[in-house]
């Protein structure tokens, strides 16, 4: 049986990891939906904004990054749930790094498109919350 403090830390860390997963899910859903829709009626042949190019690799990247983001968030939750084991630590840190990587790629994609530029600040804010939550979850996890 776990000591009361460890149990509380574990509950808190898992809860935070699930919250990070929910936030990552939102970002992933946004990426998937936009990857599916593409530029749609906003397609054009003018240069300067990949979001107007229906053949831009960034649309595929958006889908891929969304999947990575979601997978990393799940890995984080699993790693936190397996607190105390080496596997758990590796999974938790991998999930965290994976999310950080995915969000960084997301930020680069969004900020490089004038059409998406208004979202840059919101995405940066959301990324900080997700990563902050994930980091807190890792720090809170029991170390037995």
């Amino acid at each position: 049986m776990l000591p009361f403090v460890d149990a509380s830390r574990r509950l808190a860390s898992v809860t935070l990891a699930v919250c990070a997963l929910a936030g990552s899910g939102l970002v992933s859903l946004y990426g998937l939906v936009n990857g599916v829709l593409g530029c749609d009626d906003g397609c054009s042949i003018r240069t300067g904004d990949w979001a107007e190019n229906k053949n831009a690799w960034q649309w595929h990247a958006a889908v891929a990054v969304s999947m990575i983001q979601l997978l990393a968030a799940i890995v984080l939750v699993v790693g936190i749930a397996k607190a105390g084991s080496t596997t758990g630590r590796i999974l938790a840190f991998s999930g965290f790094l994976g999310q950080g990587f995915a969000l960084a790629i997301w930020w680069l994609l969004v900020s490089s498109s004038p059409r998406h530029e208004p979202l840059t600040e919101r995405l940066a804010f959301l990324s900080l919350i997700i990563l902050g939550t994930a980091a807190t979850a890792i720090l809170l996890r029991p170390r037995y």
Partner: protein
Amino acid sequence: MGRLGARASAGVSVNHGIIRSARLFMLLAMSAFAVALLPATASASGNYSIVDIALYGSSGLGDCNYPLGRARINADGLVAGTWQDPTDYIDRAFVYDTTLTTLGYGTGGGINTNGVTTGYLYFDPDEGLTPPGAFRYSDETITNLGFPAPEAEYPFSAGKDINDSGTIAADASPTDYPPTHAFKWDGTWHDLGTLPDDTYSEARAINNSGTVVGWSGPNWAPAGHAFRYSGSSMASIPGIGGSWSEADDINDSGTVVGCAYTADGDQHAFVYDGTSTQDLTPSASNAQALAINSYGNVVGNTDGVAFVAIRGDLTDLNTQIDPSSGWVLTQAHDINDSGQIVGVGTHSGATRVFRLTPTKPIALALPTIAGTPEYGSSLTASTGHWGGPSLTYSYQWLRCSLAGTECSDVDGATTSTYTVGSGDLGASVRVRVTAESQYGSESAQSDTVQVAHALLAEFAPELRYDSQESYAADSAAEMTDNYVAGTYSNYLKDSDDSILASSDPAEPGPTLSLDHLGSYISNSTHVLDEHNDTYVDDANRLHALSAYGNKMYGRIVTDGPFVWLQYWFFYYYNPKTFFGAGAHEGDWEMIEIPIDGYGQPVAASYSQHEGGETCLWDSVEKNSDGRPVVYVAEGSHSNYFTAGTFDLWRDLDVVHDYANGEGPNVTPSVIDVTTAPAWITWPGTWGASGRSPSSLTDHEAWGHPLDWNVEAGGCRQSESFRVHSNSRTRDRSVTASAPPPTPVIRARINTARRVLINYAFNNYPSGARRPWTLLTTVVPSGRRYFPYTLRTRITNRRGTIVQKLGSGPGPYKLLVSALTKAGARSRIVSLSLK
């Protein structure tokens, strides 16, 4: 100038003392038909022959330097004017054909096609101070028209011009000596009044519709405004920025010419076509246009020389006559439809009246082409209208690029008719007419006609909307013109969100319009913003206005082996969403039809989201008029060849378009934008949403119809109809993803003219997905109005929605369906509203 000048121009300031002492001459005048044996000499070298008519009388000038003794010429070359005997310096009205006929002391005015003349005469010179009166001279008889107000202390009248039905434009005293008003005389006198806030007006000319032009101003003030009087009202004609303008002539098309001051104080000639005023002499310091004929040719004077302007090109008439003639032509007063010109100039040190007659052919009106410009049809050329004697004509047809910029002769096409051949498809044709006289020859070309142009109307598609569609293919001006005064407006914005223009004219800054988009210094970061986000209300309201509703933009473009007919559709808003994403302001969709060398359609390509679909023409559904039928998907406005439900994305069966074709069926009117009006090339974005479309010219199909066609998907009706390679070919057959349950609906119209809709989802069939949005559509009666659809996010299994009725009249029908979060639609419930 002002009042003093104005009084002079009415002719009343002639020295009455001179008249009183000249009774002998008055008797001569009263006889009316004395022939002045002045020499009329002619010179026939140059492009015009010149006839010396008489010593010019009344060298005085009115406001805007209007020549008070102005000469006029009718269609037969008969001249009416004013001459002056150098022995007594008294003005005399005359008529001239080949000899000069003096009508009496006074001033000539106008002359019509029948040779009827007007002006004013001193009818009773024995009374000395008796003021002048308007006259009508016809069949060698002078008629005194009297005064509109003979009881006035100083009654007077003066005829200025006469039209072919005998109606005279005149100036006269309406009640008392001052002020003068413009009048019409048609057997009785009609006071035309003045413009608002003015007290004084003068007539200058009248056309065969009875429209009178002149100027109106305040007493004694140095300001006047050109006017046009038709029907029963006087309207101001816009000037060119200065304090004075006056209209001196009007032709039967209603085009007005005159003179006006610029803001710099210069006096320029102007032409007013009924909508805008054009400065005809922008570099002059002192110019005026005095007359215009039926073909729009204008004469006048600019900085001391007489000019003729044919299709806007000014020519110094002194360069058109024999340079050894000794004439210096200073004023051109009138021009008839044969190109004959009367005016005044100096000769042998005296100012004299002249008449010019073209000798070398002059194209007064360009040749025209009649007939339908399509494959196999016959086109017929008119010669246009030429000045010059004994002309013979020859023809040469030319084949040109679609824009008409590069042309070459068609071998053997040298008669007045031409049969359109396969080589003309995708091109334009024009005709060159050469007129020849004994003095030389001259050529003129018609405007081009685009051979494929008629096809635009012939194959204009019929749009069959989904029964729950709320946005129609309308004028793109809906995006620039939408505002509710004092409430909200659409905006043109810069990338930093600053407002560059607004739809509401009451707001500061430029007023937004399509014309504005084409006229200001723009760039691709500019955005049109439906600022109030009241999309369906605004679209519904504007659609009901005939200026906006049911419009599409057609163009013809040549690419590869085909001529392409393109039809572009603008929708105010695209409400189609997929998990909350994808809706956007502004939506451009299109279809295109390639035409082969025989003028026949080969296929049709319809736009669908970021791509499209191509079917061979034989497999395209047509309506009874032979037009292609387009099924427009609800919300997304993607275009389909058949009615149905369509999977949009890579066979994953998650995103669908619904196009049941059971809504309005409309063939919008075609606005031809082949020549690309300036707003079409506006580089900004047609809405402030992430997927709002950018400039039309940045759409791949605009500049590369063939490439776009090749990239479009193959025909989904049958693989055998696929005509182009398509790397993204996929089975896009109708799909049947799980829809949400069908709602149970009760609805009624309440006393506030709102629809109360009670919905309930009583059963969730196995596999049914959760309803996310409810689409409620009010369908009005009458073809002019469009359904009004509300999209409402729902969270409960039952609830109430309150909806507007929209713009159209009843009786109304209500259509309700549910959408899943992914956009899958339930069965549509229909019920009548009471």
